[in-house]
């Protein structure tokens, strides 16, 4: 299953809930303000790093770049463009958008 998160983890509980729900082997794609969850040095970085042991985390690079965060993504987070987003949806049986 693919989960998408589009909210800043500093402001809302969305990413945290998604991390609790994402099963081992599933994928999480961070988009829009959700990409703030993909960054090093924040108060949620540790939580995300820990989750990466069980799930694969992707982030939409156009959204990272728009926000000036090009060099700040946590190592191991996979950066994708819109085409990569499409591939992720195609590769997974279903998608849950955490709104």
């Amino acid at each position, binding site marked *: 299953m693919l989960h998408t998160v*589009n909210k800043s983890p500093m402001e809302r509980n969305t990413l945290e809930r998604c991390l609790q729900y994402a099963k081992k082997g599933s994928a999480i794609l961070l*988009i*829009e*303000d959700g990409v703030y969850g993909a960054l090093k040095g924040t108060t949620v970085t540790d939580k995300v790093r820990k989750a990466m042991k069980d799930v694969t985390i992707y982030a*939409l690079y*156009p*959204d990272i770049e728009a926000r000036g965060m090009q060099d700040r993504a946590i190592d191991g987070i996979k950066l994708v*463009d*819109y*085409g990569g*987003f*499409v*591939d992720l*949806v*195609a590769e997974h049986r*279903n*998608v849950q*958008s955490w*709104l």
Partner: protein
Amino acid sequence: MKFGIMVNEGPYTHEASDTAYLFAKAALEKGHQIHRVFFYHDGVNNATRLTEPPQDDRNIVARWSKLAAENQVDLVVCVAAALRRGIRDENLAEGFRISGLGQLIESGIQADRLVVFGD
């Protein structure tokens, strides 16, 4: 693969409608099919032909119309949500049609994937 897309937020206000568009465009470029884009909640505001963004900004409504014309994408605006928000045939942009919520369910049944873009 056949994708259904649901857009739940208005243009400019929330990035959801941009992301949905850029996703749809990328899917088409990869040779996928967009079965339908269904506009719900404030998403119906993507369909107003009266929008006039600043000249240096993207025209979100026109962009959808163009996508529909060039790729035979079915752009459906939910009638109940549209009536609440003042979207009717008289201010509907080209390429959009107003119909019922059944079109969303149908898209879920017929498409291989349904992706929701919202707030």
